[in-house]
């Protein structure tokens, strides 16, 4: 448990990470670092997308499964780690570490 917390903290403290969110299987956010409205919005939208992506992957090959989903846009990059019980979303600004 502590490890999970630590890992979460570490992830959240990275440079460039705007926010993280943990959402349960119904799309209800459990933990978030973003504000409420954004959280709700993201959770609702991304949940459906993730389910769709997962469904797609599994339709092609039922033994396969979705492990990670990344959406890169002009401004941000959204990373989704789907799981059986919870989804973890991470929003970070899409830029790279300058050398």
């Amino acid at each position, binding site marked *: *448990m502590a*490890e*999970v*917390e630590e*890992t*979460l903290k*570490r*992830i959240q403290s*990275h*440079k*460039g*990470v705007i926010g993280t969110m*943990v959402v*349960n*299987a*119904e799309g*209800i956010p*459990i*933990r978030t670092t973003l504000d409420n409205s954004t959280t709700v919005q993201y959770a609702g939208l991304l949940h459906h997308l993730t*389910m769709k992506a*997962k*469904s797609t992957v*599994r*339709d*092609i090959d*039922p*033994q396969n*499964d979705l*492990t*990670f989903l*990344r959406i*890169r846009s002009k401004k941000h*990059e959204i*990373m989704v*780690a*789907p*799981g*059986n*019980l*919870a*989804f*973890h979303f*991470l929003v*970070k600004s*899409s*830029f*790279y*570490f300058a*050398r």
Partner: protein
Amino acid sequence: MTPGKHSGALARAANAGAWRYRDFRGGEKGWWTTPQLVATMPVSPAGSHKQQNFRLNIATQPKKSISFFATMKATSVKGYTGANQSRMAVSKTVLIPPELKTAEKTNPSIKTMQVFDINGTDVTPRPLYHPDPLTGTAKPNKLLTSQEGSLGPEFISSHSLYQNTINPSMLGQFTRSVLGSSTVSKSSVSTSESIAEDLEEPSYKRERLTSFTDLQVIRAAPEKIVTKEDLEKNIEIILTETETLRFFDLPTVMVSVESEEAEKVTQRNKNYEVLCRNRLGNDLYVERMMQTFNGAPKNKDVQCDKIIMEDKGIMSTAWDLYDSYNAVEPLSLSVKPSVVESSSKTNVLPKDQDQRLPGSTTEKNSETSSLMDIENVILAKIHEDEEDHSDAILKSDKFHQDLFFMERVLMENIFQPKLAAYRQLPVLKEPEPEESEDFLESAKREEVEEESKKEEEEEIHAEESTIPANLERLWSFSCDLTKGLNVSSLAWNKTNPDLLAVGYGHFGFKEQKRGLACCWSIKNPMWPERIYQSPYGVTAVDFSIGAPNLLAVGYHNGTIAIYNVRSNSNVPVLDSSESPQKHLGPVWQLQWIEQDRGTTGDDKREILVSISADGRISKWVIRKGLDCYDLMRLKRTTATSNRKGGEKEKKDEALISRQAPGMCFSFHPKDTNIYLAGTEEGHIHKCSCSYNEQYLNTYRGHKGPVYKVTWNPFCHDVFLSCSADWGVIIWQQENVKPFLSFYPTTSVVYDVAWSPKSSYIFAAANENRVEIWDLHISTLDPLIVNTANPGIKFTTILFAKQTDCLLVGDSDGQVSVYELRNMPTALESGRGDIIDTLLGPKSNQPA
């Protein structure tokens, strides 16, 4: 049209005294259907009761054969007849009027009939059926009372039987029975049994049965005793034909134009038409209304619970089916949650919790009881539910794994250029739409630590060699935990090229702090994957070859511990701290060696060899615990035999220990029996595992403790050593004298390593510099020199196997990854005879 009535007075009208037995067999069918017949028949039992009115116009109808009873079965008539055996011999005639009107109801005028037989005896049948006044069914009486009328007119009796069925519902049965009765009555005498059978069927028949039994009883009484003479007497039986009974007459409505009646019919029709036309204004026809009584309607409502309809939809997908099929098989936890996920979208929280329970981990199971308790409750508790649940989620392994992935991906994002450089992949530029293809090419999925990753062999060096070779710092493994510690050893995992073990611990005795052994992954440079803490400084680490998850760690206090990196626990799998033969001094080097041990039967047994400051080179074997065998005891070489110019003599007597502390060792790449051991004295001994007392050879050249000795991976005659006397020496195996020596700076050289790619290149780490030497180019100067930040000493060095990268550990707890850039391309021949090429510049011998 059915014959509606009979008229009575038959018996008399019949042949006086003669009972005719009529054979009604084989007649017309279609006699039937006549409930009306029954209805109209008056019934009156003679005894108590109503009398029936039989009006038979006997004389009006010519006798015709009637055979309608053909299909009849035995009925009461039969029994009736059977009872009167004496009577059976008597025939009777029945004359029935041809036309019996249906609607006509005869008055139940009581007319008594009397029947007399030949002898004039009054054999008036008494009524068999005594209607129960309570039942109020007058009509059923008709059946049996008809029988009293006469035996003779069996017709009538059958009629009456028939008439008895007022109830149309019983008609069918009755008709059958009546029919049957008639036939039976005609057929044979002994048909009483069959009658009895039939009588069992409907209940009304039963009534008759009883009455027939009564009848039989009654009839039996006046039975005469049949004497022998009577039997032998000839009895005259006269069979006559009765008149045709017309039971149904449906006159045609069509008349042939040519028939006689045609005129009459047409006339009638015309009259009718005229009548119809006249009807309208005619006074004779008056419209009149009638009011009928309408029964009071009663509304009746029934109320039932609303039938709740629920729509449920599911999309059947390929994976859904797959999951369902697999779920039928022995429960696998991983399947069930996915089944849950793919199932319907009912969002009932408790239900989902229940469904999730099978997929939960053990930690969550303790919460499941609490979850079940809170199942159907208040909002406040539901909130609690969610919290429990969220905790459960957070605790679950899967979430942890997901986080792990997330972190990795994040790292990839952050370190992408560096990692790409490390892996020699095209570096991704700033994200622009045009670069998206590049991204797709180079984007890789993060994998779990235990899985090995395939390297991609893309060359990126497009730059010309105008820029001199340099070390480019990519990143460094460091975190808060490791800050301030001294990196003492580095080791790659043998199977997973991305896994690196780093041991942190100070060298010096005075500087001892806590120690740390970490496993880092290239994929996550910001946090180690495994952290093993210990109170003592770590001085040596090595991964096992045969079991790549075992990490051997040597401590400053002489303990050797073996950790299983698969688990996160801080407890080592094996520990040598209790072993009686543990090392008493710091374990300076550890290495897992695969040795051919033909004698023991195993092909290759892996042993752990350690060298420590107590002068022992030990071999550790994992059996039940860690068992130690000494390979060699490093003895201090006495001054007499090893006197060499410049070396100090060691005095025998004043020695505290006879052992020389061993600092490092290196097994021969080909022959694992031979190994080199460097001591604190500065000697390098070539030893063999077969002898644990004597050295095969001793190489003297260093004046200070030899910190590292390594064989050249390509050229097996050459080895390299570095020591605290600021020097790096290349030796040749046969030659006890140094081959080449380098004294680049006036600082202790902590570590040297050969490059895995070329036999000419090696790297040396001294206190404030990392030097890359390329012997092919120059033996005087290093090719690349990388200076450290002030205050930091480079302590360990390690080449990365597949890539052009170098790992350097320093005294601040950082392990920096450098990339060797613009290295001169390695010659193929460089892998072989380094000696030959170097034989030339032998002028570089140390002074």
